[in-house]
C-alpha cells in the first residue's frame, strides 16, 4: 500500500518555502549513552499552511518544535524561516506549550501583556494594552482577564497560552500538543476555537499532536513522525476537507474516512515495526489453576 506523497514538495525545496528543514538531526547524552532522537528530518512548509505532525510519545515531537522555535540547535542540517537560518528564539515564532508555561504571579492579561510589551516596544503603552486585551477577548477570556492562573481551569489556562502566542503576532505559530492535557469535552471546544482563530488570520502553523482526529479536524496536511529513537518523518497526507470541519459531519465524509483509515493504518504498521525491532520474550503458559478462595456465598442453584 502506498502512503500519501513525499514530505517535501520539490517546488518548495527551490528556496520558496516559508519554513524549511534540511537533513536535521539531534542527539542527546554523551559517550555510550548518546541517543539520536531525530534523524534526517526534511520538511518544507508553505505560508499560511496548517501542518500537523502526529507522533508517538517519546518519539521526539517536542524536540522538533524546540528546534523550530530556536530553543535547541541541531547537530546536523539546517532550519530556515523565510530563507533566513534559525539561530535562536525570536518573536517571529510564537510557541504554545503543552504545560501552558504561564507566570503564576501575573494575571491573564498580565501574562499576555508581558509578551506584547517585549515584542512591540515601539508602540505606545495604550496601543500595547489595547493589543493584549484584544487577544484575551479573542480566546473568550475577556470576563476573566483579572484572574490568576491558579484560579483557572486547565482549558482556560491553555486559552491564555494561545492568546499569548497569537498576541505576539508571530509569522509562525508552534503548537506543542496544546490540547493533550485536557479532557475530551474541553478539548473538543478548544479545537473549534483554534480553527476559528486560525481561519480569521491564516497564520502558518505547525502543531504537534498524538491524536489523528485532532489533526484531521485542524490541519491542511498531516505528517507522521515515526517512532524513535532516530525518528524521521513519514509520508505527507493532504487533508483537502472543507472548513469549518464539524466533528460529527465529517464522520459521513468519504474523503475523511479514507484519509483517517490510511493514516491509522500507517501508524499501526510503523508501531508494529518498532515493536518487532525490539522483540521481547514470550514465556510458556504455566498450567496451575487458581485456588477457590471463598466458600460459595449465596448459591442461586438449588
Amino acid at each position, binding site marked *: 500500500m502506498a502512503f500519501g506523497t513525499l514530505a517535501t514538495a520539490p517546488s518548495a525545496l527551490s528556496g520558496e518555502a516559508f519554513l524549511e528543514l534540511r537533513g536535521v538531526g539531534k542527539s542527546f547524552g554523551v559517550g555510550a549513552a548518546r541517543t539520536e532522537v531525530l534523524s534526517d528530518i526534511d520538511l518544507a512548509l508553505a505560508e499560511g499552511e496548517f501542518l500537523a505532525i502526529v507522533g508517538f510519545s517519546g518519539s521526539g515531537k517536542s524536540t522538533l518544535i524546540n528546534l523550530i522555535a530556536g530553543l535547541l540547535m541541531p547537530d546536523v542540517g539546517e532550519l530556515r524561516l523565510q530563507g533566513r537560518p534559525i539561530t535562536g528564539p525570536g518573536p517571529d515564532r510564537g510557541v504554545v506549550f503543552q504545560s501552558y508555561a504561564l507566570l503564576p504571579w501575573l494575571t491573564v492579561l498580565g501574562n499576555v501583556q508581558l509578551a506584547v510589551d517585549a515584542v512591540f516596544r515601539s508602540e505606545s503603552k495604550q496601543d500595547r494594552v489595547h493589543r493584549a486585551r484584544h487577544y484575551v477577548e479573542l480566546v473568550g477570556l475577556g470576563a476573566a482577564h483579572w484572574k490568576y492562573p491558579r484560579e483557572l481551569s486547565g482549558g482556560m489556562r491553555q486559552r491564555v497560552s494561545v492568546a499569548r502566542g497569537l498576541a505576539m503576532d508571530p509569522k509562525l505559530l508552534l503548537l506543542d500538543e496544546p490540547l*493533550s492535557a485536557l479532557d475530551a469535552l474541553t478539548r473538543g471546544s478548544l479545537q473549534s476555537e483554534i480553527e476559528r482563530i486560525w481561519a480569521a488570520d491564516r497564520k502558518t502553523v505547525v502543531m504537534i499532536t498524538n491524536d489523528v482526529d485532532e489533526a484531521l479536524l485542524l490541519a491542511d496536511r498531516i505528517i507522521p513522525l515515526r517512532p524513535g529513537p532516530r525518528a524521521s518523518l513519514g509520508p505527507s497526507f493532504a487533508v483537502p476537507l472543507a472548513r469549518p470541519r464539524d466533528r460529527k459531519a465529517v464522520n459521513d465524509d468519504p474523503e475523511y474516512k479514507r484519509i483517517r483509515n490510511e493514516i491509522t493504518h500507517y501508524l499501526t504498521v510503523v508501531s508494529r515495526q518498532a*515493536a518487532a525491532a525490539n522483540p521481547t520474550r*514470550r514465556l510458556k503458559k504455566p498450567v496451575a489453576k*487458581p485456588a477457590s478462595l471463598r466458600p460459595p456465598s*449465596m448459591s*442461586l442453584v438449588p
Partner: protein
Amino acid sequence: MSGYLEMFKLSKIYETPSGPLPVVESFDLEVAKGEFVALIGHSGCGKSTVLQMVAGLSDISEGHVVLDAREIDGPGPDRGVVFQAPCLLPWMTARENVMLGVRRVYPHVDEKTRREIVEYHLSLVGLANAMDKRPAALSGGMRQRVGLARAFALSPKMLLLDEPFGMLDSLTRMELQEVLLDIWSEDQMTALMVTHDVDEALFLADRVVMMTSGPRARVGRILEVPFGRPRERSEVLEHPDYYALRGELIAFLESQQRETRAA
C-alpha cells in the same frame, strides 16, 4: 436468565441533605460467558459506578449482581479489575506488584510456579525485559501493561476494565488496545469495560451498551458489533458499516450531552 454475569435492577442511591439521589437506577444487563461488553456514556453518567458495584468496591443500594450463578457481596479475586490509574505500589517492581495478587490466588502451588505465572503474564504484555523495574522507571503505557498483567495473572472469572487507557495518549492507547485484544483472545475471558472512546468500544467489544446520563442512569441502547474475530484494526476500519456505527455512537453521546445541559 442465562447470563454468565447478570445485573438485575441494579441501583446506586446516595443519601443527600435534600433527600435520596439515585445515580444509577434499575440497570439491567446480561453478559454471556466469553463476551466482551463495552459500556459507554458521558463522564459522570454513572458507568464507573456500575462497574464498581460489579467489582464489589461500591455497595449495591438495590438490585443484584450475579456472576457464574453466585451473588456478588464484595470484592474478590474472581474479578480482575484494571483501573484508569494503574495503582501500582511504587516501592515494588513490576514483578512484585503482579506477585502480590498471585500469592493470594495461588496459595496451593510452590513459589517457583507462582514466579512462572507472574513472568508468563508480564511477558504476554511485552514486559519480559522490564520485570524488575519500579513504576517510576516505566512510561504511562508500560505501567498500564503491568496493570493488565496483574489482572490476567489472577485467572479471574471475568475482567472489569474502568477506562483503562483513559490517561494515555491516543497512539499509546491504540497500541494497548491491541495488547489487550491479544491477551484477551488467549482464553476469551468475559469482560466488561467502561470507556468514552467510541473507536475503542467498536474495536474491542461484541456489544456496546450506551448508558443514559445520570441521575437515574440506565441502559439506553445496545449496539451489536458485527466485526468478526480475530480483529485487525485496518480491516475493522474498512468494514462498510464502521463509520455508520461510529456515527450512531457519537450521535447518542451528543444527544445525552444536550439533555444534560437542558437539565
